[in-house]
């Protein structure tokens, strides 16, 4: 079953166009949305969430039209937007106290459990948390309302390798039950090697390919140069696809 189905998503800006993005995410899977900086990953995620108003396209989430069922769809998702901190001077307990009021399925016991598991102190203020702990706090909030789809915008950017590995391991655990799905954007290809079932590649606002990881890698082997042995890695695929020559 598809938890997310994006069709023909298009958004025009003066100097950038996100054009005809189409992909779908199945239940229980992790999809990496890749592309270099400025390719349109964040615009895609924000358009899915109605934070950006797309010019064309449809978003189906859990089988429902997202725009027509915004409230019920949002009940079942958890979102972490990179580089955006909410209420830096507020304590986690205050933010949680407000957030939980909006969710029908809020599970306080589960929330307390996640706080312990992630070693989060609810008395701390957002500004006192490291980047990784902020992501973990947002995950704790998302899991406590039984989110079935987690959407992360560059969750591993700015994290040290240890924390990054820790987070990716957590992602794997989250989908293990087959109930949850994750869509996350990144430009760090090693994250995808470790933690992605499917890959959607956006280049200059256009969808290059969306497929299961091994199939995705296979489809780019034409980029191999004569005499090269072995499969190209995701990093090599991305570099060769994006490579530009500067005539300076």
């Amino acid at each position, binding site marked *: 079953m598809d938890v997310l189905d994006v069709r023909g998503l298009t958004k025009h800006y003066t100097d950038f166009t996100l054009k005809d993005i189409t992909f779908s995410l199945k239940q229980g899977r992790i999809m990496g949305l890749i592309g270099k900086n400025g390719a349109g990953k964040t615009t895609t995620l*924000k358009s899915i*969430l*109605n*934070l*950006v*108003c797309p010019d064309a396209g449809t978003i189906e989430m859990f089988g429902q039209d997202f725009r027509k069922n*915004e*409230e*019920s769809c*949002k*009940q079942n998702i958890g*979102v972490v*937007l990179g580089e*955006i*901190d*909410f*209420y*830096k*001077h*507020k304590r986690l307990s*205050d*933010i949680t*106290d*407000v*957030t939980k*009021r*909006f*969710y029908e399925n809020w599970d306080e016991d589960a929330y307390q459990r996640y706080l312990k598991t992630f070693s989060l102190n609810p008395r701390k203020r957002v500004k006192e948390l490291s980047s990784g702990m902020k992501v973990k706090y947002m995950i704790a909030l998302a899991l406590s309302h039984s989110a079935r789809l987690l959407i992360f915008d560059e969750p591993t950017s700015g994290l040290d390798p240890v924390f990054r590995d820790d987070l990716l391991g957590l992602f794997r655990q989250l989908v293990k039950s087959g109930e949850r799905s994750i869509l996350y954007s990144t430009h760090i290809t090693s994250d995808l090697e470790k933690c992605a079932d499917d890959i959607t590649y956006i280049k200059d606002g256009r969808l290059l390919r969306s497929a299961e990881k091994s199939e995705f890698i296979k489809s780019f082997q034409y980029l191999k140069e004569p005499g090269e042995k072995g499969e190209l890695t995701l990093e090599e695929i991305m570099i060769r696809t994006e490579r530009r020559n500067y005539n300076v």
Partner: protein
Amino acid sequence: MFDLLYKELKLAAHPNLFIFTLLGVLVIVPAYPYGMVFMFGCLGPYITFMYGRETNDIYYTALLPVRKKDTVKAKCLLLVLAQMTQLIISLPFAFLRVKVLLAGNPAGIEANIAYYGFGLITYAIFNFIFLTHFFKTAYKAGKAFLAAIIPAFLVVAVMEVLVHFPKFQWLDSIAPDAMLKQLPILVIGIVIYVISIFTAYHVSAERFEHVDL
């Protein structure tokens, strides 16, 4: 609706909003241009909107399981709550000053029925312009405030100046018959305030739907 308001008060509101709301008590000051109370009622929300931009409040609200237009509703509710609370806080002091300050207010209008009517008109003008301007972008709070506070201030200035003309002495009175004459101003104020906030909500929500966060 209650949850949205709770969120506004607990997370979004700047402490200044509470302080400026309490400034309804200024009507007990013996000589003071009481129109300033309404200016504080406009300044408090503006500071909160600026604070909201700093704390990414709009993003947080837009990600909650609410419709995008509920982000606008939350702000409208906060404005109404703050302004009405300010007026309610001022009321007992307006009654008290009649008993303890028999000389009246030499600086400007009395805290009478006309005063509250003008106040509601001031708020109505400010709210409509400020909200509809702000939600064009959801971040240009300064520009929206400037566009809104100038006409709002003009209403206050007219009110404060008018009462110094002998012809409009009845506006400055707390005598029962004069206050009866002032009653239509209050009624007009209430009607304009209600129409303004509902229209502001609809126009702002429509504009915010097209804003790219």
